[in-house]
């Protein structure tokens, strides 16, 4: 008896620290996953600077303050909108269409970092990651901000500041979270087996569709299309700014894609970092070559758009395809983006910074590419195989369905919201203000008072 008691106590003595270590191990894992997710979120936040620089650089100096202010304020609005209700719509438990549980102010019950089965709360669809609720929210928040920012460049140089801010609020409070719910919030596309790892569709296409609606309602900038249909290029005012912005975005994408694991899974994040980088590089090369061959010279704004196109395209498939496939996906994106820029000019859609060619067109391409290049469990996710890896058309068709539904919904709602704003308060500045520049008109400021401007492109 005595012996047995001794044994038992020995057993327990060992078991208790054992349990304790296990607990500590779990804590450490939560800590590491949180550190990784937060740092990735910081990098994604940093993309705001990238968008601000790319967009101002590719527009004229007289509209610089306006573009900068737009990019600055829109993230603030996005943060508040997503905090107030966007998060709840996107990740709250609810129907296949939208979330309804814990809707307001991240106010639902939640026992994060408990995961999977152990999770109990209002935001089950994101319980696959074991980090604190606020870390989940913060990471998703910076994504929402990105979607809003995409629109900014497309409508630049002619949109009213206040109207844009209101649209951004609606986009982040309502539109983005609804389609986001379909895909990442456990909604009907998630159930259908639609895969979008880091948001080619959820973020980029959605931003792109909203931008397209905006452009159509707004019309082109004065002087962009001549009476005879001739395209007059309106050069951006600062290629240094634009290039810096592109490099910032590239860096930010290392948070955007690898960070979307929301866990420090070593094989996964290394794989994703690499596919992300290789797609971007391939796209730069093919965009350079395409521009060189088609247009005679490698225009830097095309190289920049090329890089971003590669990054947008690999966003959905980055975790589902091989490094080799990522090179191919990027290479195709680099060609597509050059053709798209020329195409939009041809059909008289005036997109000053190429937001449509980059985010919309390549957001679609990237999403479809999952259906072509996916390899089941290449890292960790069981996506099934894409067309080129023996999976047949199944995955491709699901992807296509997702692209179409999200596009139809966002574009239609976008038209309605832009249209309503147009009727209610106007969305376009006066012709005189457009000529003089929105900086003075909207902000009473100019960006570069110490420099003499050239009238070459007024």
């Amino acid at each position, binding site marked *: 008896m005595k012996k047995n008691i001794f044994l038992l106590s020995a057993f327990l003595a060992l078991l208790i620290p054992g349990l304790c270590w296990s607990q500590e191990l779990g804590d450490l894992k939560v800590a590491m996953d949180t550190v990784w997710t937060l740092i990735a979120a910081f990098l994604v936040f940093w993309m705001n600077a990238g968008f601000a620089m790319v967009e101002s650089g590719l527009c004229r100096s007289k509209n610089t303050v306006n573009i900068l202010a737009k990019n600055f304020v829109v993230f603030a609005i996005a943060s508040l909108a997503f905090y107030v209700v966007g998060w709840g719509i996107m990740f709250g438990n609810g129907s296949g269409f939208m979330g309804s549980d814990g809707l307001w102010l991240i106010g639902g019950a939640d026992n994060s970092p408990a995961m999977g089965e152990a999770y109990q709360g209002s935001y089950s669809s994101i319980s696959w990651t074991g980090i604190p609720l606020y870390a989940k929210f913060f990471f998703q928040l910076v994504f929402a901000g990105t979607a809003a920012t995409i629109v900014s460049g497309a409508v630049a140089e002619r949109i009213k500041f206040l109207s844009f801010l209101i649209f951004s609020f609606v986009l982040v409070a309502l539109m983005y979270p609804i389609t986001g719910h379909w895909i990442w919030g456990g909604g009907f596309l998630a159930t259908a087996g639609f895969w979008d790892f880091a948001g080619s569709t959820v973020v980029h296409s959605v931003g792109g569709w909203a931008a397209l609606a905006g452009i159509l309602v707004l019309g082109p900038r004065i002087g962009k299309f001549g009476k005879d249909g001739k395209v007059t290029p309106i050069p951006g005012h600062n290629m240094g700014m634009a290039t810096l912005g592109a490099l910032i975005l590239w860096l930010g994408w290392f948070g955007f894609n690898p960070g979307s694991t929301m866990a420090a899974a070593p094989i996964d994040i290394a794989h994703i970092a690499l596919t992300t980088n290789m797609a971007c590089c391939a796209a730069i090369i093919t965009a350079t070559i395409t521009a060189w061959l088609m247009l005679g010279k490698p225009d830097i704004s095309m190289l920049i758009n090329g890089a971003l196109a590669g990054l947008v395209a690999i966003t959905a498939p980055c975790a589902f395809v091989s490094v080799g496939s990522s090179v191919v996906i990027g290479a195709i994106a680099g060609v597509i983006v050059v053709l798209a820029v020329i195409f939009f000019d041809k059909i008289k859609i005036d997109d000053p910074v190429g937001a449509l060619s980059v985010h919309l067109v390549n957001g679609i391409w990237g999403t479809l590419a999952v259906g072509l290049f996916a390899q089941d469990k290449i890292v960790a996710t069981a996506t099934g195989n894409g067309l080129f890896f023996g999976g047949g058309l199944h995955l491709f068709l699901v992807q296509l369905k997702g692209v179409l539904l999200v596009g139809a919904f966002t574009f239609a709602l976008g038209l309605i919201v832009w249209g309503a704003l147009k009727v209610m308060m106007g969305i376009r500045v006066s012709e005189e203000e457009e*000529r003089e520049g929105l900086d*003075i008109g909207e*902000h*009473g*400021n*100019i960006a570069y008072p110490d420099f*003499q*401007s*050239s*009238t070459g492109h*007024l």
Partner: protein
Amino acid sequence: MKKLEAIIKPHKLDEVKDAIMELGVQGMTISEVKGFGRQKGHTELYRGAEYVVDFIPKVKIEVVVKDEDITRLITAIQKVATTGKIGDGKIFVTPVEAAVRIRTGEKGEAAI
């Protein structure tokens, strides 16, 4: 020879240039200037204080032509440069006593 100086609104430059060329004039020189006149400047804002910017961006076109061309030139420029709004600018004519083409050393009307 005469020198015509036209101070115009910057966005009219292309039209004015075309009008001048149509008259067979082969050269001109432009510069970025700032104008002050009946057209008032605008108010700018910086860190909570307002200030008035009096000077408005204009483009100055200088063209040297033969005496006989000057009237046609004036008419042509005046026609296309006008918007009817205050601030459209001025045309001034001054005498030119000599002209030289640097490349060839040609002098006088041959040089312009």
